[in-house]
């Protein structure tokens, strides 16, 4: 079974081709069957390949299968070859697993939509692209997957293309990603000119076998650091970090399963996968690692603050995703590659759960997304409430659930690797995360304050086909924590599985203190989480403190957060408008029309003018002509005399 692993991406591709070409003619059931079937098949193959991979001895734990040479010019060579190593195995499992659940959920959610086959065709294409991304053997094929997922997110965000907002959100997502991809391309060139190849194993082997040729560039921006930074910019674009995150909140215009699959579980994590996959490169560029960590933590805190005041349920979750991704980058930045991956896995489960839960709420309320219009759904949608509660507790980091273990590991690694400032910011972020998720649950499901009428009565519980995946995800959110227990609790299976594939970050020496400090840190982080939840209860359940009053006291701060720090307007004002103005006024109308065309038509007019003057010389009277003739003869004679 091990040598058939490369079939995994081709199942969804087949699904896409079938649905794309003949989807319109198939009955609804056949469509959903092919869609979910193809994902299920690849999930099963993934499981078998995982088993085969486990049987491999530690040092040779990878498969590789070259299909054909894609581009070869001179000494540049890029093959179309798939491969599996522990890192990509984890990603494949998460993608196919969560993907399958979301496919099943979508058959319910998208029921009755005219573009039903088109939706599943795009979803399958997305899975194919994501699997290509993670299973690629060289950076170029990864780039194919990279842009492929960008395309699918464009198509799926703009799925309801009649809505102008959806269409422009899709375009915005693609373009912002494209900025990151441009930097990514430059990184690829630098890589090629340093290593002569773009294959992962080729580069890793080069880095290991010739340490003197590729020294660790501490303190100065060498080519290695520059390459790492360029790759990181690409990751920032894809995983919506500080400068290029603006597209994720707008991406919520797409259907909710899309947000769950693409903008929570899989696509946005591609950035982290890229950094972790090129860990060998990053470990040689400490400066790059520092920037990753700082940018990550900055995004985490920044996004969390905005999340506090959002009214739309999906916007809250979107900013929470940005924040959690920040955490993952912070972890990777300080060298805790395994910690980052662990949080990635757990986050995929509980964030997908929260999104799908929100989806069923919206489905129940027939499209209502504003939190302040919801209320006491607890009774109408008890099952959704239960799973959402589990999701909330997990993300808040309540001890025992998966969120606690993965977030705590990150916080511990931050603390142990000496980045105290980052650790403190991490704690603040954790508190805010707890607060806004609790706020979400309380506003949506809690009882409305006396004044406002509630729409609750019209809501109905979602059908089984939507609830079953939710329940599975809830279970996963609870159980996922156990695969990466911290040292003082048990063995970290994930670490054992991943360690051969990752480079050891020399600097991040293991835990400064003993187990006791680790436990104390864990206790502190869980306390912070409970504190956050309590605050939310105070605001929205017991209504001791009035949120509007608080907002009244700090009007500027509230408006700042409410308008998302006016970042969108800033980008529009600084980049988009001037660029359009310059290209219209200066380039097109002035340079093309006036200067060059002016020049061309000018010469035309000058020649015609000269022609007119010459024409007027023909006065028509014979005597003038005779004068011309004699003058001509005279000049010839004089010329002879003089020359």
């Amino acid at each position, binding site marked *: 079974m091990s040598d058939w692993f490369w079939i995994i991406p081709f199942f969804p591709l087949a699904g896409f081709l079938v649905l794309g070409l003949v989807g319109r003619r198939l009955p609804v059931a056949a469509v959903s069957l092919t869609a979910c079937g193809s994902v299920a098949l690849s999930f099963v193959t993934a499981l078998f390949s995982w088993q085969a991979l486990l049987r491999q001895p530690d040092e040779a734990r990878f498969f590789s299968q070259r299909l054909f040479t894609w581009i070869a010019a001179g000494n540049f060579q890029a093959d179309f070859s798939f491969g599996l190593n522990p890192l990509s195995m984890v990603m494949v499992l998460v993608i196919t697993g969560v993907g399958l659940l979301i496919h099943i959920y979508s058959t319910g959610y998208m029921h009755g939509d005219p573009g039903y086959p088109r939706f599943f065709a795009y979803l399958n294409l997305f899975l194919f692209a994501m699997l290509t991304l993670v299973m690629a053997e060289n950076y170029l094929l990864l780039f194919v997957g990279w842009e492929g997922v960008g395309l699918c997110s464009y198509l799926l965000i703009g799925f309801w293309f009649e809505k102008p907002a959806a269409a422009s959100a899709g375009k915005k997502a693609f373009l912002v990603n494209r900025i990151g991809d441009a930097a990514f391309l430059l990184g690829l060139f630098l890589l090629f000119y340093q290593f002569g190849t773009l294959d992962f194993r080729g580069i890793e082997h080069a880095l290991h076998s010739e340490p003197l040729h590729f020294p660790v560039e501490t303190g100065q921006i060498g080519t290695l650091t520059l390459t790492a930074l360029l790759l990181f910019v690409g990751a920032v674009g894809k995983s919506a970090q500080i400068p290029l995150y603006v597209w994720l909140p707008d991406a919520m215009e797409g259907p909710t399963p899309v947000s769950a699959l693409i903008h929570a579980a899989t696509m946005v994590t591609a950035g982290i996968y890229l950094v972790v996959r090129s860990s060998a490169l990053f470990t040689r560029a400490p400066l790059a690692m520092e920037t990753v960590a700082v940018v990550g933590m900055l995004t985490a805190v920044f996004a969390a603050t905005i999340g506090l005041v959002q009214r739309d349920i999906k916007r809250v979750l979107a900013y929470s995703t940005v924040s959690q991704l920040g955490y993952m980058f912070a972890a990777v930045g300080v060298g805790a590659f395994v910690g980052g991956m662990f949080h990635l896995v757990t986050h995929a489960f509980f964030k997908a759960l929260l999104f799908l839960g929100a989806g069923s709420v919206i489905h129940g309320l027939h499209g209502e997304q504003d939190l302040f219009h919801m209320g006491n759904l607890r009774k109408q949608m008890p099952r959704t409430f239960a799973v959402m509660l589990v999701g909330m507790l997990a993300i808040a980091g309540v001890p025992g659930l998966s969120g606690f273990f993965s977030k705590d590991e990150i916080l511990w690694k931050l603390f142990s690797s000496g980045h105290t400032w980052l650790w403190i910011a991490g704690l603040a972020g954790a508190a805010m995360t707890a607060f806004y998720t609790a706020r979400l649950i309380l506003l949506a499901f809690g009882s409305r304050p006396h004044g406002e009428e509630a729409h609750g009565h019209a809501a109905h519980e979602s059908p089984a086909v939507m609830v079953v995946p939710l329940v599975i995800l809830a279970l996963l959110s609870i159980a996922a924590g156990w695969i990466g227990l911290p040292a003082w609790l048990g063995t970290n299976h994930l670490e054992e599985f991943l360690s051969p594939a990752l480079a050891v970050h020399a600097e991040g020496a293991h835990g400064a203190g003993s187990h006791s400090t680790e436990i104390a840190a864990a206790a502190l982080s869980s306390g912070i989480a409970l504190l956050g939840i309590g605050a939310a209860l105070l605001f929205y359940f017991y209504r001791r403190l009035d949120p509007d009053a608080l907002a009244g006291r700090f009007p500027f701060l509230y408006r700042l957060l409410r308008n998302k720090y006016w970042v969108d307007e800033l980008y529009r004002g600084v980049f988009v408008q001037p660029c359009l103005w310059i290209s219209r006024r200066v380039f097109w109308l002035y340079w093309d029309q006036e200067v060059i065309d002016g020049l061309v038509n000018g010469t035309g007019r000058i*020649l*015609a003018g*000269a*022609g007119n003057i010459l*024409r007027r010389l*023909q006065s028509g009277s*014979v005597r003038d002509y005779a004068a011309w003739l004699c003058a001509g*003869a005279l000049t010839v004679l004089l010329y002879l005399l003089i020359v």
Partner: protein
Amino acid sequence: MNDSILYWALLPEILAGAGGIFIVLLTPFLRGSRDRGSRLIPGLTLLILLGAMVALFTVARDLPQSPMKELSFSGDTFSLSFRFLLLLICAVISLAARPFLEREEIFRGEFYALLLFIYLGMALLSGSQDLLSTFVGLEVLSIGCYILLGLKRSDLRANEAAWKYFLLGSISSAFFLYGIAMVFGATGSTRYADLFALMGSHSDKQATLLLNCGLALIFVGLAFKLALVPFHSWAADVYEGAPSLIVAFFSTAPKVAAMAALMRFFNFHFPRMHYSAGHFAGWIAVASMTLGNLAAISQQNVKRMLAYSSIAHAGYMILAIFIDNETADTTLFIYLLAYSMMNLGAFLILSLLSGKGDLCVSLHDLSGLAERRPGLAALLSLFLLSLTGIPLTGGFTAKFYLFGSALKNGLVGLVIIAVLNSAVSAYYYLRPVVHMYMKPLPESPSPAEVPPVPIGFALAIGTAALAILWLGILPSFWLEFAEKVNLALK
């Protein structure tokens, strides 16, 4: 003994002269029967011209090589090729003459006699070895042209054109004559042989000075015929005023003869003149090219535009006198062949389009012609493209060969100016094409219905178009022809 050589060498000219006289005698008798007469005379003229061509080649073959020193005419092959070209042009004109003249009601038997006499004058001009016979040849040509221009007595514009051409023509003959006087003074005789001897010898500083002044004045006389810049002012008015068929003849044949005579003085056979013909001829070439092209841009009347374009082409032609290697004659022959055929074709079509009364064809009259008369429009476009020098037409081969040889002599500057000028010329040559093909048919004044093309015109335009395409696509035949004729000379 030498008389017999004389007669053989001049056989084509004798034929033409005798034919002319015979026609002059014949026309009064045929006055009565209008239709039969109008068929017989043109046919006779054509026969004479073709006979002359045959005579030309039979004579050329067995001619003893030494041009007759003491006689004032040489049948050398340089003049053979040019006389063949002149005969070709006269034949084409005689083909198209009858329908045109009848339409303009100036049909006379004498027209054909004049045509033959003018051919005789031109042949004399291009083949003479004696200054006096060159002068007489020039005069025969000029007076013939004055009469042709004056034929259309009723049309004011034609009369004015004839008078202008007459007065300016006689002034230029006066200059020409004074030039001959100077040369006669310097060399003591009018024969070319003595002239060339003196030129080569650089013996007497002062004699050559006098000689230079003479040659300069002779250049002025011939330049007038070619309409080069300082002496071009007559061209535009005469081309516009005169009947277009006569202009067709007028813009090609005299130029070929004048160019042949010019080549004899300034280039042919003898070491480079030490006096600076190169300079002022170079300046005149540049001036005529640029003025010709620039003035043509803003012309609305197609005939006036073609007048300025022929001034420009005269400018290109003059470059040939700088080529001092053996290809000079073949280059000039090819260029003149292409130029005359293009111009002939263009003016013949214009004379068809101008309809009864020969009113001037403006660009506006041409619009939408492609719909009404696709055949004529295509042919006129072919000629205009050839005048521009688009490949696969005779114009391109001519320009390519000329510029190639000119570059061989290091005239890089002149060639670049010439090339830029032909780029500018593309604009106004293509404007009629734009009007014919791209402008819609004007509804309001429905254009004069062009009568069906008479056979004579069709044949004439056909030969011109055939020559252009043949020269463009398979030039090797004509190149061989020119070289074979000239090699015989060397």
